[in-house]
């Protein structure tokens, strides 16, 4: 690819800038600019280093936080002893190997993918990895960011590099504009339903088009975050003035002459006119309306105005049997209007939709309204800093006045590893990223939604959009 055609895509430019070694017949050895670490996927990697007598090669390119296991009702007590040991293990590993850690109670603590952008460590043109599939979030800045397993975590700790086979490239051309009240979450849910959970397999994706350019960094992060839900290796967005304005002045953003040099470089990363992608997909943003999932994978979704589909309406045996199983698990019947589905719990938060803009969107719907009787609503900021910023605007008062729970930062009900879980049979509307069986707690049933839909659903007690409140 290099040499044969000087026109390159964003992904190819970032890739090429990080190749330490490239030999025919072997994966490229890529340098990693930033390694994010959390408590769940790292303990065995640090153990591996100890067993081999290895050090962390570049502790200053590594940062850690506590998020998956942490409680969100207090900052002091981790009641589950197994969770506590995992957190204590991270603290010991970070101390032993010289890695900066944002612990529970720290002003920057929070979901690992909220942390990187908020301190300005996530920057365009970087390679960023983490033992977490939602590392794709950082692609919103024009970084090449992807999730890795624990063996690879150990590899990056020891060498600051990763052997990676060169992926294929894909363009997602989002044409048209999003309508009023339609969010980045609706857009990405609609895309995943269009292309399926394996649609992006083997590809680094670039989201392009006016609807993407018009999004805030928060909205772009929501899009990139869910790249993994349709199988993409990473999901990038070209950096532009929106990106630079978001970064300017943050703790780790370049300053002075470095800032000017960085911006000049970042501007050069955009895909060249005429560069060729291996695959292209088109989505019409103007046709997207509030979108929700009805099944047990993120590709099983439909417009909120629609109905639960019949399994026989799908094209393949695999899709038909998956839909059949999903409807049994979700206790839903074909033909049921999605708006008729009543929920027990509403969750606003996660690395998908736990940033300030998301909380503002939910609060603006809840202002002057109240959560329906019998519905529990949790609002969980993505980080302690997001929580503080929301409180400075008074958003917490809107939530508590509406009868929602205003909680501390963490992964919370996204994944059932901490005390925030659904009970068996409970149904949620959730701004998180996965509606897998049992994801939010054994036997729990999840509908993925945007923050405005979550808030409207909480008020009415069934899946709903803000327009339904008038």
């Amino acid at each position, binding site marked *: 690819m290099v040499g044969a055609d000087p026109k390159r895509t964003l992904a190819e430019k970032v890739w090429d800038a990080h190749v330490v070694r490239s030999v025919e017949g072997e994966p490229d050895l890529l*340098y990693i600019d930033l390694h994010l670490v959390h408590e769940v996927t790292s303990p065995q990697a640090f153990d591996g280093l100890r067993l081999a007598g290895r050090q962390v090669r570049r502790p200053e390119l590594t940062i850690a936080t506590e998020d998956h296991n942490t409680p969100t009702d207090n900052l002091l007590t981790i009641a589950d002893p*197994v969770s506590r040991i995992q957190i204590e293990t991270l603290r010991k590993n970070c101390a032993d190997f010289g890695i900066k850690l944002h612990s529970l109670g720290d002003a920057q603590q929070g979901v690992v993918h909220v942390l990187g952008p908020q301190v300005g460590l996530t920057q365009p043109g970087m390679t960023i990895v983490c033992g977490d599939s939602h590392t794709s979030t950082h692609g919103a800045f024009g970084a090449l960011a992807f999730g890795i397993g624990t063996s690879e975590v150990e590899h990056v700790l020891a060498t600051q590099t990763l052997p990676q086979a060169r992926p294929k490239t894909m363009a997602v051309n989002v044409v048209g504009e999003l309508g009023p009240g339609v969010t980045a979450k609706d857009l990405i849910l609609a895309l995943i339903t269009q292309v399926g959970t394996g649609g992006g397999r083997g590809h680094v994706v670039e989201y392009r088009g006016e609807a993407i350019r018009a999004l805030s960094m928060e909205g772009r992060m929501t899009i990139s975050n869910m790249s993994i839900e349709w199988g993409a290796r990473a999901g990038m967005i070209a950096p532009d003035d929106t990106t630079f304005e978001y970064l300017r002045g943050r703790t780790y953003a370049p300053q002075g002459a470095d800032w000017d040099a960085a911006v000049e470089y970042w501007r050069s990363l955009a895909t060249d006119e005429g560069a060729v992608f291996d695959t292209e997909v088109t989505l019409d943003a103007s046709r997207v309306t509030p979108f929700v999932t009805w099944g047990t994978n993120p590709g099983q979704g439909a417009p909120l105005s629609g109905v639960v589909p019949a399994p026989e309406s799908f094209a393949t045996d695999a899709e038909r049997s998956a839909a059949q199983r999903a409807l049994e698990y979700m206790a839903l019947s074909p033909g049921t209007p999605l708006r008729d589905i009543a929920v027990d719990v509403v969750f606003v938060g996660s690395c998908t939709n736990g940033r300030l803009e998301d909380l503002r969107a939910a609060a603006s719907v809840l202002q002057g309204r109240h959560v329906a009787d019998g519905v529990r609503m949790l609002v969980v900021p993505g980080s302690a800093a997001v929580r503080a910023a929301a409180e400075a605007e008074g958003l917490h008062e809107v939530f508590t006045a509406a009868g929602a729970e205003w909680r501390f930062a963490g992964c919370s009900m996204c994944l059932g590893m901490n005390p925030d879980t659904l009970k068996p049979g409970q149904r949620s509307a959730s701004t998180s990223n996965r509606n897998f069986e049992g994801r939010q707690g054994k036997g729990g049933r999840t509908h993925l939604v945007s923050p405005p839909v979550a808030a409207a659903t909480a008020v009415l007690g069934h899946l709903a959009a803000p327009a339904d409140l008038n």
Partner: protein
Amino acid sequence: MEKFTVHTGTAVPLRRSNVDTDQIIPAVYLKRVTRSGFEDGLFRSWRDADPKFVLNDDRFTGASILVAGPEFGTGSSREHAVWALRDWGFKAVLAPRFGDIFRGNALKEGLLPVELDTEAIEWLWDAVDFEPDLAVTVDLETREVRAGGHTWAFPLDDFSRWRLLEGLDDIGLTLRHDALISTYETTRPAFKPAVH
């Protein structure tokens, strides 16, 4: 990593698509800080909920090859999913398509992810259901699966195949290029961030 050359065993038909890693091992089993003993978490929700689930079926006890539907191992990057399959006794997973991260993790641990087309998978499901003792061979030397007189070729890049055949450790391989890494580091722009 243990070497993988040729493995012959019996197989379990898992007639499901989109088997995400949350199903392979639920999150509550991820709280451990050890690297073995994850077999108790394997498909735990499905094993608990359904007495007829294939891993509860005595006919398939001792099977070492899992035959699954498309999009196996999507979702979370948890390598624990690979550890759970390995600790249960699986040596290979056969499916039409895998999630990229799961596939990468499996290759690191010597659990062979084998891509076969839907027709082959469906033939194996039916054949193994009919004859649970059917010997299935996964041959990495020739990149073939053989069973009941059928032979199917599967794709795997030469480098991954070589690593598995030799049982090589990636970190050790990379550290051979330590000088190249150091040279690269001298070229990194000054504006790249460092944690302080």
